[in-house]
C-alpha cells in the first residue's frame, strides 16, 4: 500500500506519455471488444447451444426438408430422450425489412426440448390451445411493441399469403444476454395452409439422455436413413450453429490475425515507453537500491507501473466497447446475438495485462540488474 504513492508519482511525472500509452491500450481493447462482439454476433448462438441436443438436417442442404414420418423412427433409437422439430417459415411483419427468424414448431415438444426458454403454465396452455397462437421473444416484443393477446399478421415469403397469429406468450431466459429476436408458431397452422412441402419439417432436434451418448445417437440416426430419398446429417447443436457462422468466412482466423497485430504493436509501443521511463531515472533507481530497496522490489515497482497503465487503459477500452454495444443489434434483426459477453471482457482484460507484463518485463529486469555503482557514476 505504501508503495502505491511511488507508483502513482512515477506515472504522473510524464503525464502525456502515460496518457498516450494508456490510450493505446484503450484503443486496442476497444477494437478487441468490438471485434469480439462481431464474432459472437456472426457465430450466432454457438455459445448458447446445449451439448445434449443434436440437430438432424437434410444431408443435401440446410433448406431441403425431411419427412415428418421420421419422427417415430428417430424416437425409437436408443438414448433419444426427447424429440421435436421446426420449419423455417421466413415471414416478415408489415415490411420486408422487418425481418426476423420465425419458425413453425410442434407446440407440445418444442418448449419442452428448449427448456431454457421459460414460459408460464398459462402461456403454454394458451399457445397449445390456439391453432394460430405464437410465442414471441422479448427483443421482438420490444421491437414492435407486441403484448400477449395482440394479433400479428405475418407475411409469408416461401408460402405466400398473410398468416394471422395471436401472441400467446413472451418467454424469458435465465441468462439475460442470450436473447434473440424470434417467433414460434404452430406447425399445424402452417401445414394446413401451405402450398408445397406438405408432410415435411425443416429439421429435427433430438435430446439425448446423456451428452456422452451424443456421437453414438448421431451415427445411429444417419445410418438409419442412409440410402433413403432423404438422407440425414446429424450434428451437435453447437456444430450446427457454427456451420452457419462458417458460411460467413473464417471469422475466428480473421479476428485472431487482427488481434495478434494489435497485441504486438501494443507490446512494442508500451515496451518502448516503459524502457525510456526507466532509462530516464537510472540514477533514482540506483539511489533507491542504495537505501535498501531490493532488486526484486525494484522489479516489482517497474512492472506495477506497466501493469497499472495497461489495466486502466485496457479497462476503459473494454468499458467503451461494452457501452457501444449496449444498444444491441444495429442491423435490426440480422445479428440477434449482438453483445459483448462478460467472458470476452475478462479475456480481453487478461490480454491487456499480459501485454502490460510483456512490455514491462525487459525494462524491469534491466532496472533490477542495474548495478548501483555504475548507475551512480553516470549521474
Amino acid at each position, binding site marked *: 500500500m505504501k508503495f502505491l504513492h511511488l507508483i502513482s508519482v512515477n506515472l504522473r511525472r510524464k503525464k502525456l506519455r502515460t496518457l498516450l500509452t494508456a490510450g493505446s491500450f484503450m484503443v486496442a481493447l476497444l477494437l478487441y471488444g468490438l471485434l469480439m462482439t462481431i464474432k459472437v454476433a456472426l457465430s450466432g448462438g454457438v455459445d448458447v447451444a446445449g451439448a445434449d441436443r443434436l440437430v438432424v438436417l437434410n444431408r443435401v442442404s440446410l433448406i431441403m426438408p425431411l419427412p415428418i414420418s421420421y419422427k417415430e423412427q428417430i424416437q425409437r433409437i436408443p438414448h433419444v430422450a426427447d424429440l421435436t422439430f421446426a420449419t423455417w417459415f421466413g415471414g416478415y411483419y408489415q415490411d420486408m425489412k422487418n425481418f426476423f427468424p420465425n419458425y413453425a414448431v410442434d407446440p407440445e415438444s418444442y418448449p419442452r426440448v428448449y427448456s431454457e426458454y421459460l414460459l408460464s403454465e398459462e402461456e403454454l396452455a394458451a399457445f397449445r390451445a390456439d391453432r394460430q397462437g405464437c410465442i414471441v421473444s422479448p427483443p421482438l416484443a420490444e421491437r414492435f411493441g407486441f403484448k400477449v393477446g395482440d394479433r400479428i399478421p405475418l407475411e409469408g415469403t416461401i408460402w405466400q399469403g398473410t398468416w394471422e397469429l395471436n401472441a400467446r406468450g413472451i418467454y424469458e431466459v435465465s441468462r439475460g444476454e442470450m436473447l434473440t429476436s424470434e417467433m414460434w408458431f404452430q406447425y399445424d397452422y402452417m401445414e394446413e395452409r401451405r402450398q408445397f412441402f406438405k408432410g415435411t419439417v425443416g429439421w429435427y432436434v433430438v435430446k439425448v439422455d446423456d451428452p456422452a451418448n451424443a456421437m453414438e445417437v448421431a451415427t445411429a440416426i444417419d445410418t438409419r436413413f442412409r440410402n433413403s430419398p432423404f438422407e440425414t446429417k446429424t450434428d451437435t447443436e453447437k456444430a450446427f450453429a457454427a456451420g452457419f457462422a462458417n458460411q460467413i468466412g473464417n471469422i475466428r482466423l480473421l479476428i485472431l490475425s487482427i488481434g495478434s497485430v494489435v497485441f504486438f504493436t501494443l507490446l512494442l509501443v508500451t515496451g518502448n515507453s516503459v524502457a525510456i521511463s526507466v532509462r530516464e531515472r537510472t540514477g*533514482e533507481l540506483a539511489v*533507491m537500491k*542504495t*537505501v535498501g530497496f*531490493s532488486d526484486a*522490489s525494484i522489479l516489482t515497482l517497474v512492472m506495477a507501473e506497466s501493469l497499472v497503465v495497461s489495466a486502466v487503459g485496457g479497462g476503459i477500452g473494454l468499458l467503451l466497447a461494452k457501452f457501444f454495444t449496449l444498444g444491441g443489434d444495429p442491423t435490426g434483426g440480422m445479428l440477434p446475438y449482438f453483445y459483448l459477453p462478460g467472458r470476452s471482457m475478462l479475456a480481453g482484460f487478461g490480454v491487456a495485462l499480459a501485454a502490460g507484463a510483456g512490455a514491462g518485463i525487459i525494462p524491469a529486469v534491466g532496472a533490477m540488474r542495474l548495478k*548501483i*555503482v555504475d548507475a551512480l557514476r553516470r549521474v
Partner: protein
Amino acid sequence: MVRVDGKGSGAVVELRNLDKKYYRGEEEIDVLRGLNLDVDAGEFIAFMGPSGSGKTTLLNLIGGLDTPTAGTVRVNGDEISALSGRKLAAWRARNIGFIFQMYNLIPVLTAFQNVQLPLLLTGLGRAERRKHVEAALGLVGLSDRMNHYPRQLSGGQEQRAAIARAIVTDPKILLCDEPTGDLDRAAGDEILDIISRLSKEYGKTVFLVTHDPMAAKRASTVLHLDKGTLLECTADGQLVCGTEEVRR
C-alpha cells in the same frame, strides 16, 4: 583507534588485504591493492587523494554497494563481502547512511517523502514514520521545507534533505562522498557542521571523501589514498610518516 597496517582487531570497520580491479577490455586497472583499515566506532575519517585514486571505490566497498576483487570487508562484525543481493540490500538499509555529492533526491517526491523512502522498507506504521522523518528533518534544520520538492530547494537545502534521508533509519555509519563538492563555502560549511555534529553528538562513525583540506580538518583522522593503499596525513596534505598505529 584507526590503523592502516591490518593489525587491529574488533574494529567496527575492518578491511583486510582489499583488492579492487576493474577491467576495461584487455586493460586491467588496479584501483586498490592490499588495502588494510581498522576504524573504531565513533571515529571521523576523511579520505583524500587525487582524482581517480579510488576514494569512491573504497567508500562503495565499505557500504556494500560493490564487492572487492579479493580481501574481506567486515562492518559491525558482518562479513559483507560475503553477502549478496537481497541480504546486502537489507543490511545496507539497517547499517549505512549514504550522502552523495549530487544529493540524488528523487525529483517527484517532496523533501518529506524523500526522507521517508528508506522507512518504507521497514515495518513502521504511518504515524511512526512521520515522527522519524520529522525528527531527521528537524536535525538538519529543514522542518519548514518538508513539503517542498527538490527543485524548490537550494543546493545546500537539498544536501541537508539528503543527510536527513541518510540518518532517518539511524544507521551507525555514514558514508559521505564529496558532500560539499557542489556547494559554495557557506553552504558547504553548514553541511560539514551537521556532519560533525552527527559524529560528536550522535556518535556516528563517519567516512568523508573530500578534496578540500578545510573539510578534512573536521575529521579526527585524515587518510591519504595513494597507489591503492592508505597513508595517514595531516589535513593540509603533509604525510605523517613512520607510524603504524596512526592515532591514539
